[in-house]
């Protein structure tokens, strides 16, 4: 079967594309909208904002989440902030600069037109959120405050203490609950999507498992939106919420939606280091800390002195030394690898030697403890609770951890996947961040997709597509439901000897070591041997207590791990073929003498989209060429 990718980027000047698109797109007249039904799977930033907006427009929306409430989605954990090109601080920001920074930050592996649209709507997002009552931080004059984030030389990040994601999600949740109250959204909590239903080549519904009763449920609609977040949890340890998973996206992949750039994974430089085998997740310390914290290690190898006993002269503020113009604010991938290099050199700190210091001594001396507390109080408290160390008194210990996945379901300019009627929003898609995401731009993207992009592109689809009347008795629904039940039953009947977590940790270890911060051809080949072995053992030897007709958390986890075991292999496969270093994908074979990534634009200036070909068959890799007409391809330098 031959697959093609059409990005459907509209013509015209980059700054006019989105305006032109909106003008030319098909509209659905207001009274017809209520005849269309839309399923929105996931109620994080992307899903909640999309559900709310579509319901306001008049569509019949069904919002499905596996959480007990839309307010709990992983988006709630985002700490640092959200970008917008408002230029309130008057430091030279503009839509174009945000666009430029994001393309460059993504290491020239994103689609220019999408990124420009993102930058364009960024300002609307802030207006919208403020109008909703999101309590962003303000200055004494009562106007909005900004701070700076990695990869940018302007202050364009809006924030609400260290709880920006929470406040934005609560804002979107409020908007959504308003529509639930008005009867325009049917909220379906505690159901997990386990399959996509495709009828006549178009996405027409999903099959869910009611997590409390264990029953499978059919949902039918005219279009399906996947807003289910990223797949960092494939690594077992990541900064993602524990329920975050790739299941919805993966099952769409198995039904024909292409999965793009699975190897692009972001490793965040500032997380609290692992403390032992029991570790269940990693906690991020927001990147915003790097505004005031200085990163350092000892100049000496194996230095066991307490941080306070190491004199200035023995400290190596390596980020400031190597990247003088960005200093502690160098982008995430660059800072993460620098930390890894320091630890590999034997200069890591703490008991494990797998950490570097993030020191606030100078900031506290300069601004006073109160100012620092006001900015980062809850982060400091969080650190204190976890480590039992007081960061006002001694430097934090930090280490990189898996944090974000740039890869995801492939979408065109309309955010539509390769299956018509299946749209993908937020972290679940591959769209705007290329090979590396800049801080504070995931929140921006999720909300841009939900509030501003999907309303236009969905109406274009519905207004220009003929949809047959179907019912939930359609054979495609029965077949998908049957597939789901078979899979679930297979899991509960394995009755082996290893727990789901044990198997997941095994996968995580392979991924972290071989498809983590530094990747090599040999390592990836190894991973491609190891992962199928773990997968095989999983299906025969996993132990799931209880049965499927019950609230069964182990069974839920098992389903997700089974998908990670397939996705993990695709990640390694993708990483192996992408024989270059770019953004979060660092192939050790391709680096400068001082350890910087070396891209190969001639061969790899494309997005790689993978198509599923069936059980046991190799997937097909199709390239979407990326052309850079506005931002000139250049070596990304933060020196």
């Amino acid at each position, binding site marked *: 079967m031959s697959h093609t990718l059409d990005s459907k980027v509209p013509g015209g000047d980059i700054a006019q594309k989105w305006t032109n698109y909106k003008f030319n797109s098909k509209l659905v007249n207001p009274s017809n909208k209520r005849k269309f039904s839309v399923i929105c799977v996931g109620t994080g930033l992307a899903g909640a904002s999309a559900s709310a907006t579509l319901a306001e427009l008049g569509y019949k929306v069904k919002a499905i989440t596996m959480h007990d409430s839309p*307010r709990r989605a992983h988006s709630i954990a985002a700490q640092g902030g959200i970008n917008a090109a408002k230029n309130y601080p008057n430091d030279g920001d503009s839509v174009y600069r945000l666009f430029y920074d994001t393309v460059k930050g993504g290491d020239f592996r994103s689609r220019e037109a999408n990124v420009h649209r993102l930058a364009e709507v960024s300002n609307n997002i802030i207006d919208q959120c403020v109008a*909703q009552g999101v309590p962003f931080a303000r200055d004494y004059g009562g106007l909005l405050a900004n701070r700076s984030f990695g990869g940018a030389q302007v202050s364009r990040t809006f924030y609400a*203490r260290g709880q920006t994601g929470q406040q934005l999600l609560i804002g979107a949740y409020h908007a959504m609950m308003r529509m639930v*109250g008005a009867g325009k959204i049917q909220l379906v909590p505690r159901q997990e999507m386990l399959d996509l239903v495709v009828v006549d080549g178009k996405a027409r519904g999903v099959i869910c498992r009611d997590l409390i009763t264990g029953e499978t449920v059919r949902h039918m609609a005219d279009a399906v939106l996947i807003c289910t977040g990223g797949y960092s949890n494939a690594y077992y340890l990541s900064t993602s919420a524990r329920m975050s998973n790739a299941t919805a996206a993966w099952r769409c992949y198995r039904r024909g939606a292409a999965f793009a750039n699975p190897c692009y994974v972001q490793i965040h430089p500032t997380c609290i280091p692992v*403390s032992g085998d029991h570790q269940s997740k990693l906690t991020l310390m927001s990147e915003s800390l790097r505004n005031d914290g200085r990163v350092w290690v000892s100049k000496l190898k194996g230095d066991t002195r307490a941080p306070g006993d190491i004199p200035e002269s023995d400290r190596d503020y390596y980020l400031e030394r190597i990247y003088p113009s960005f200093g502690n604010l160098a982008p995430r991938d660059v800072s993460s690898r620098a930390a890894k290099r320091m630890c590999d050199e034997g200069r890591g700190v703490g008991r494990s030697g797998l950490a570097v210091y993030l020191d606030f001594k100078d900031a506290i001396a300069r601004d006073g403890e109160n100012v620092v507390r006001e900015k980062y109080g809850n982060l400091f408290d969080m650190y204190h*609770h976890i480590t039992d160390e007081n960061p006002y008194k001694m430097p934090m210990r930090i280490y990189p951890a898996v944090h974000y996945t740039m890869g995801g379901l492939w979408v065109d300019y309309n955010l539509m996947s390769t299956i018509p009627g299946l749209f993908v929003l937020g972290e679940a898609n591959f769209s705007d961040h290329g090979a590396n995401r800049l801080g504070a731009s995931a929140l921006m993207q999720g909300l841009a997709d939900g509030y501003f992009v999907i309303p236009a592109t969905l109406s274009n689809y519905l207004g220009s597509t003929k949809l047959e009347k179907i019912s939930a008795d359609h054979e495609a629904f029965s077949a998908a439901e049957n597939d789901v039940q078979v899979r679930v039953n297979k899991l509960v009947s394995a009755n082996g000897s290893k727990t789901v977590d044990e198997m997941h940790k095994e996968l995580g270890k392979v991924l972290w070591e071989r498809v983590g911060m530094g990747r090599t051809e040999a390592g990836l080949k190894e991973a491609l041997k190891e992962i199928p072995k773990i997968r095989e053992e999983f299906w025969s030897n996993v132990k799931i207590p209880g049965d499927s007709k019950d609230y069964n958390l182990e069974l839920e986890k098992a389903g997700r791990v089974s998908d990670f075991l397939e996705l993990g292999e695709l990640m390694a496969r993708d990483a192996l073929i992408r024989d270059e270093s770019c953004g979060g994908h660092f192939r050790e074979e391709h680096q400068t003498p001082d350890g910087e990534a070396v891209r190969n634009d001639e061969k790899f200036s494309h997005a790689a989209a993978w198509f599923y070909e069936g059980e046991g068959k190799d997937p097909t890799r199709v390239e979407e060429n990326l052309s850079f007409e506005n931002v000139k391809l250049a070596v990304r330098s933060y020196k």
Partner: protein
Amino acid sequence: MGNHGTIQKDHSMTLNVQAWRQAGPQQKGKFETYKIDNIIPEMSFLEMLDVLNQKLIKEGLDPISFDHDCREGICGTCLMVINGDAHGPERGITTCQLHMRTFKDGDTIVIEPARAKSFPIIKDLSIDRSAFDRIVSKGGYVSINTGNPQDANALPIAKENAELAMDAAACIGCGACVAACKNASAMLFVGAKVSHFALLPQGQPERTERVLNMVEQMDAEGFGNCTNTGACEAACPKEITLENIARMNREFMKASLVKRKC
């Protein structure tokens, strides 16, 4: 245990966990006691439960159901009552932020779900808090559609009010206030939501309707009344203050007086 060296090598603990087991909403529940060892102080409370559950699964027993997600104190999922305290004995944190260093070798830890009629038990420690969502759906928002609102800076807001609104908006919807309150009252949660909007100019147009409708729904959900005992404030992981309940009381009485229809 352990020697007296400078590095504590063997600082692991053995604990008795007395956990509430209940198969479903209608079934009767009871306490079950489990002994676990090799618990180290660096573990979080939920990691201790993970260890226990792994052990139960290996022994062919049903693991303890408990809900959790972010494990960093922000999603509000992980509420449970530990030794009589919602989110455990320490103030200002959630269960997932509680660490085992709070406990001693040999301790017995009693773990129960929140007990409130409006939060039915689903299984073991998992509860249904959808009542909170229904309350929010009755007015916990500003009624504006997505579109082109005025520029964000067209509306200056006094820093102090913005901060107070943020204090209230920090609520994570965990339900510890309800769990801790001897009356199972949701006033702190609702008060925080009402305050968030009452303090901001954006909330003014719907100020009257909002508080009346949200309180009506709160009562309809069957939450108890507040008798100002303050247990909620002490249990709240986000340290939402009683000031928010007072503000809601005031907002409510004012709204009841000025509303034009009965």
